């Protein structure tokens, strides 16, 4: 058999990428977006926001910023979208946006990740808490560090 060209190697990989995209990725993303809609419509997201408000002052953020983190858990795009809309409406200042930005990505997409990371890698659910715990720590530490950078001690 003749040696494969780079083009053939790439196309082989791209075909595999298409399969992953259609079979593993797209159904999970549609699930996540529908879930976001249900949480929005039922008011669960909003209620969580007002309950958790006091916690956010630890990071020098207004209470509404919890919505950014909750939306981030569903998707990074959602988290960024909420952050930008709160910034546009003046609820978050430029400094607040700076503080919360790394956390959107450090803690982002956790619900999608159950399918896209845990499901694909096939790790046992008994280790989800370990991975989630570290992820939460990363986000919290990231926000505290950004608070220090932006607002000092």
């Amino acid at each position, binding site marked *: 058999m003749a040696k494969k060209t780079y083009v053939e190697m790439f196309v082989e990989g791209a075909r595999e*990428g298409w399969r992953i995209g259609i079979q593993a990725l797209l159904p999970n993303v549609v699930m996540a977006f529908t879930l976001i809609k249900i949480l929005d419509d039922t008011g669960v997201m909003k209620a969580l926001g007002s309950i958790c408000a006091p916690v956010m002052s630890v990071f020098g953020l207004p209470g509404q910023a919890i919505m950014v983190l909750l939306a981030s858990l569903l998707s990074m795009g959602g988290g960024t979208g909420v952050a930008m809309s709160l910034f546009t409406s003046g609820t978050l200042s430029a400094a607040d946006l700076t503080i919360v930005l790394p956390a959107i990505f450090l803690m982002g997409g956790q619900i999608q990740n159950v399918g896209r990371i845990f499901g694909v890698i096939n790790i046992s659910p008994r280790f989800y808490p370990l*991975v989630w715990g570290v992820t939460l720590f990363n986000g919290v530490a990231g926000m505290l560090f950004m608070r220090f950078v932006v607002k000092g001690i």
Partner: protein
Amino acid sequence: MKQETNPAVGQDNTPVEQKNEIDIMSYINPFLAIIILSGALAGTQGWLKAFDFNSLTGDFGTMKNAAQTFVGSGGTGAKQGFLFGLGLIPAVMLSVGIMSIVEQTGGMKVAQKVLTPILRPLMGLPGCASLALIASTQSTDAGASLTRVMFEKGELNGKERLIFTTYENSGAAAIGNFISIGAAAFPYIVVAMGIPFAVILIMKFIGANIARLILNKFYKEEELAN
């Protein structure tokens, strides 16, 4: 490159056991499905909307100006998710395609040579994990798929797989996502974008090492193999 990924959450290599017993949810689920699919709550406002099929299906975004992609703005629900999800696929095809060339031209062996001495002290991972590591900075799915394949080939053990999972899960596809999605915020933040970016990468590394410490201290490899 052969990758076996699960088509959906919970459908892994292990066959999903079919539960045939009737429980309380067997009665509730058809009831909810009838409500949702019948359109009985169409046009309602407030939380009832969450049980209307058309509302859950949502809308495609619309392109209000030439700068917007086909995802548009103002989309909701499953339709928005579908377009957003379609938009993710080219990046996956591209990164898996590139990784395919790297792998088939012997890149795996070179990466192992160069990174083995660094990755082991850095995160307790074998050097061959470097490819998955690089892929995972761009694409969550490419990174996760590669990790699964490496475990199945025996290139990662159970502990290493969990360390890698932890590394990837926090700040998934950090570079790809931050540069694309995060870019929306760059013009407005009060520090250079390099600072939050560095915070993300450093915390990913620190987090992986926390997982490594915990796994080393409290678990034996035999407990981690599945």
